[in-house]
């Protein structure tokens, strides 16, 4: 077992984990952050995307021990109290979700994308989200949601 100390959604957690524990499994089973879902388990779908030290990562492809000393943001830590993050608001307003399974990862990938490029073109949004699959194929409204979120956040879409 290995000791880790990880700040998740603003709260510090200390835990003993086996080195083989995937970050997504520790988030869900270790500390109850079940908003982060397991999709494909093959690094393809991006449903398990979280922010690790501010950048999007697929948490099925990171060991929990690798997150030691880092900050993790899951979908459950994105809102500011009762106030949703603009990307969450935009997904609601633009119907950016159908079954909702890809949504936590999609939203966090979009947060990362807009942090790097506050004013993305449609093509840049599509490329920026290429690591996140929507099995409902609801991409059109997801792209609209991200463009609207850019507007809400003051960047605006090209």
């Amino acid at each position, binding site marked *: 077992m*290995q000791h880790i100390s990880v700040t998740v959604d603003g709260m510090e957690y200390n835990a003993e984990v086996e080195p*083989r524990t995937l970050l997504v499994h520790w988030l869900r089973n270790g500390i109850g952050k079940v908003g982060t879902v397991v999709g494909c388990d093959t690094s393809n779908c991006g449903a398990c995307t979280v922010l690790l030290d501010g*950048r*999007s*990562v697929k948490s099925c492809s990171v060991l929990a021990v690798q997150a030691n000393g880092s900050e993790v943001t899951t979908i459950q830590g994105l809102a500011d109290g009762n106030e949703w993050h603009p990307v969450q608001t935009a997904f609601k307003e633009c119907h950016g979700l159908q079954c909702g399974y890809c949504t936590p990862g999609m939203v966090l990938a979009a947060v*990362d*994308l807009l942090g790097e490029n506050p004013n993305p073109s449609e093509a840049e949004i599509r490329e920026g989200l290429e*690591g996140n699959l929507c099995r409902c194929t609801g991409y059109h409204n997801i792209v609209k949601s991200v463009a609207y979120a850019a507007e809400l956040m003051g960047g605006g879409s090209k």
Partner: protein
Amino acid sequence: MIPVAFDYTQPSTVDEALASLAAGGEDAKIMGGGQSLMPVLRLRMAAPSVVVDCSRIDEMIGICEDDTHVIIGAATTHHAVMNDPLVKKYVPLLAEVTSTVADPAIRHRGTLGGALAHADPAGDQPSAAQALNAQFLIAGPSGRRTVDAKDFFVDYFTTAVGPDEILVSVAFPKQSDGWGYHYEKFSRTAQAWAMVGVAAAVRMEGGKIAEARVALTNMAPTSVRATSTEAALVGASTMADIAAASVNAADGTSPTSDIHADAEYRAHLAQVLTKRAVGKAAALS
């Protein structure tokens, strides 16, 4: 928990990493960003005794320059490589190639050195290293040595890095005036591996190609140079000349056949993509 149980160590120097590797024996495994290792761990296709995580060794992270080369630490992430001002200015082909690897989340974790040492025949960066004559700095128990790209890639998932050694950094020659570059990648879907890829670097002189380097992705057990096409390209000044030289692009290669493409189709792709890549690199298309 899907992977088999293993020990984990996170050394902070290359020497510590070498010691961990030696202590772990033949089943010790080096991890860079883990974006190739994690999938095979989950599938239990790898069962390491110890994972030596090299992602926090200062000497292996970051990008610097000397008079002739841009030197990139092996544990520098793809995201850092493709956005780095030195890489964009002096090694634009590497920045372009790296931006086609996987997707943003994987590029935040995956490392240049990890991808090169993993040496997947469908990996993109080995072709950039081949086309640019990169040099690899390898550390082992008996000291350090430098290996040229042409000697680095040995076979499927096999490089000059020995089981007791670690890739520390990779040096790419700085682009000089007159050189142009382009990477053509053909894949079925977003974030998919290359069915075939072609990295081209050409030096123009008086409107003609004076020197050409063409590296092929996924046409052999390793990235390979299309040497007969490179020779035939010298003197080319039109797209027709480039097309004629590209006919030989698949000479000496041994592409595989799989559910997505048979060997004959891959050989055809190599010709078409070579023509496009060289045409763009030479600014003639």
